[in-house]
C-alpha cells in the first residue's frame, strides 16, 4: 500500500477506512464476486425467464446442453437451467434465513453469557449444551415428517433453531477473553453502558470472527437444507438445489450419463460456501489493522 490517506479523527472514519481496504482486497472481491453473481442469478433469473414453473415439461427428455437449453433437460424434459435458477433462489433463502436466525440466537446468548459470567453464564451454558447434544437431524426428520406442510421458511426456521449452539459457545469464549482486557474497564470508566460496551468495544474486535460464524452458519444451513431435500424431507413444492440433486439421484442421472443434471447444483453449493470462506479470509485482513501492513 503506497498511498496513505489523512482522514479527520472522527468515529465514522473506522467504517470508511474498512471500506477503503475492502475494495482493494482481492480475496474479498473474488469471494463476494462469486456469491454476488450466483445471488443475482437467483434473484433476477426467474424474472428474465418468464413466468413458467420450473417443473414444467418444456422439451424432449435427456437433451444435453445446447443453445436452446443451456444446462440440457431432465429425464422428463424439464429445463435444468430454469430449475437451477429457481433452486438458487430457494437455497439462498434457506441459507440466509437459517443462518440469520442461528446467528442472532448465538450472538445474543454468547455475548450475554460471556460478558455477564457467573450464574447467568452457567444457566445459558447449560441450555447451549443441551441443544448441542440434541441429535439435530433426527429431530428435524421427526418434525418435518410430523408437520406435513413443508415450506422453505419453516425448514429454515427449524435449521436456525437447532444449529446455533456451537456458534454461541465460540462467541462466548471469545467474549470471555476480551471482557477481561483493560480497554473494557476503561470504557466503563468513561461511563459507557454495558450494551454499548458489547456492541462497540467487544463486537468490533471480533467482527471478522462474527462474520465467519455467520458464513459457517449460512453454509451449514445450505448444506443441512440440501441434505434434508436430498433424503426427501425438503419443501413439498417448488425446487431447490438439494431437490435437484435428489431427483437426479432418484432417476439414476449418474448411471445414465446425465451429468448436466447434477453437476450445476452440486457445483453451485460448493461455489457459494467456498467463496464465502475466501471472502472471510479477506475480511480478516480488512478489519485487523495489523494484518494490513504485512
Amino acid at each position, binding site marked *: 500500500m503506497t498511498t496513505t490517506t*489523512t*482522514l479527520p*479523527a472522527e*468515529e465514522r*472514519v*473506522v467504517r470508511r477506512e474498512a471500506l477503503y481496504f475492502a475494495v482493494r482486497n482481492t480475496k474479498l472481491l473474488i469471494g463476494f464476486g462469486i456469491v454476488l453473481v450466483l445471488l443475482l442469478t437467483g434473484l433476477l433469473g426467474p424474472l428474465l425467464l418468464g413466468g413458467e414453473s420450473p417443473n414444467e415439461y418444456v422439451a424432449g427428455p435427456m437433451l444435453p446442453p445446447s443453445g436452446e437449453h443451456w444446462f440440457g433437460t431432465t429425464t422428463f424434459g424439464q429445463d435444468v437451467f430454469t430449475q437451477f435458477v429457481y433452486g438458487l433462489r430457494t437455497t439462498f433463502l434457506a441459507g440466509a434465513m437459517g443462518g440469520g436466525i442461528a446467528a442472532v440466537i448465538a450472538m445474543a446468548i454468547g455475548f450475554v453469557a460471556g460478558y455477564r459470567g457467573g450464574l447467568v453464564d*452457567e444457566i445459558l451454558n447449560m441450555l447451549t449444551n443441551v441443544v448441542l447434544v440434541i441429535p439435530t437431524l433426527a429431530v428435524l426428520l421427526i418434525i418435518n415428517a410430523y408437520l406435513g406442510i413443508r415450506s422453505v421458511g419453516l425448514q429454515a426456521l427449524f435449521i436456525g433453531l437447532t444449529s446455533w449452539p456451537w456458534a454461541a459457545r465460540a462467541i462466548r469464549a471469545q467474549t470471555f477473553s476480551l471482557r477481561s*482486557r*483493560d*480497554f473494557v*474497564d*476503561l*470504557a*466503563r*470508566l*468513561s*461511563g*459507557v453502558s454495558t450494551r454499548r460496551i458489547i456492541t462497540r*468495544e467487544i463486537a*468490533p*474486535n471480533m*467482527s471478522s470472527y462474527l462474520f465467519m460464524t455467520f458464513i459457517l452458519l449460512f453454509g451449514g444451513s445450505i448444506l443441512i437444507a440440501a441434505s434434508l431435500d436430498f433424503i426427501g424431507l425438503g419443501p413439498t413444492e417448488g425446487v431447490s438445489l438439494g431437490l435437484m440433486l435428489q431427483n437426479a439421484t432418484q432417476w439414476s442421472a449418474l448411471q445414465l450419463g446425465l451429468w448436466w443434471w447434477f453437476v450445476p447444483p452440486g457445483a453451485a453449493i460448493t461455489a457459494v460456501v467456498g467463496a464465502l470462506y475466501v471472502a472471510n479470509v479477506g475480511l480478516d485482513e480488512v*478489519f*485487523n*489493522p*495489523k494484518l494490513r501492513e504485512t
Partner: protein
Amino acid sequence: MLKVDNVTKVYKVGTFGGKTMTAVDAVSFDVRPGEVVSLIGESGSGKSTLGKMILGLVPITSGSITVDGVAVKPGKEYYRSVQGVFQDPFSCYNPVFKADRVFQLIKESYYPAVPAAEWTERVRSAIRDVRLNPDEVLGKFPHQLSGGQLQRLLIARALLLDLKLLIADEITSMLDASTRIDVLNLLAELKARGLGVLYVTHDLSLGHYLAERTVVLRHGTVVEMGVTAKVFDDPLHPYTRQLLSAVPRLHAPWEEAAPVGSCLYHERGGTGGLLEADPGHFVACAQLSNC
C-alpha cells in the same frame, strides 16, 4: 476525600462458588486532596483489587468506600471525578480503533454539547500537558505508539474531566527508566493541582520518591502505614523491614534482613487492628496469622 473503611473482599472460587478466597481483609485508610498515597505490597497482596473496588469495577464484600462522603457508585457521575490509569497501556486501547477513541468516549459521555473544533483544541492542550506532541500521537493506531506515549495519553484522558481522585495502578511498571520518571513527575504535577492520587505499586523507591504517605499491604491486610519518611526510616513491622532490605542499593551488596525480635504490638498493648506507635504511624502485629 477518599475514605476506605474496613473494606473486605471475598472471592467465591470453585464450581458454584463452593470455596472462598479473601483478597482484602478489613483495610482502612484515606487519601486527602493534593496528596499522593502509595499502596505498596507484593503480588497477590490485594492492592490492585483495592484499586478496582475504589473504581467500582469490583464489588465490595463488606465495609465502605466513600469519596467526599459519597459511596462508590459505578456510573457517569462517579467517573467524572474518579478515574484510573492501569498497568498495561497496550491492553487499555481497543486494538481495532485509533488511540484517539479514548478521548472520543469521554466526549460522548460527558461533553456531547461541546463543538468538535473546541473539543479537538481541549484534547490537544491536554496532550501538550502530558508533554506529547499532538501531531505525533493523534490519528494513530495503538500499535503504532510506544508504551510511554500510550500511558501519557491515558493520563491526558483523565485530565479532560473534573478530576478529584486518580487511581494509578502500577502505571510505571511497563515503562523504561527515562519515561518512568516523566510519568512520575506528571503525577507530582497533578498533586500540585489539588488532586488526590492513590499510587499502587510494588516498587518501594518509586513510592518513596512520590508519596506523602505510605500504606504497606500484605496478604490483604495493612501491616504498617504512616508518613512516608517515618515508614521508610523507622519501619516497625518486620515485613516492612524485610521489604526495605530487599531494595537493591547502589553501593552495597545484598544482605540478609535483620531477624525479628519481640513483637512491639503486644508490648504496647495492641488488641486487634492497628496500633498507633507514633502519631500518624500505625503498625499491625508481627505474627499476623497466630495473633
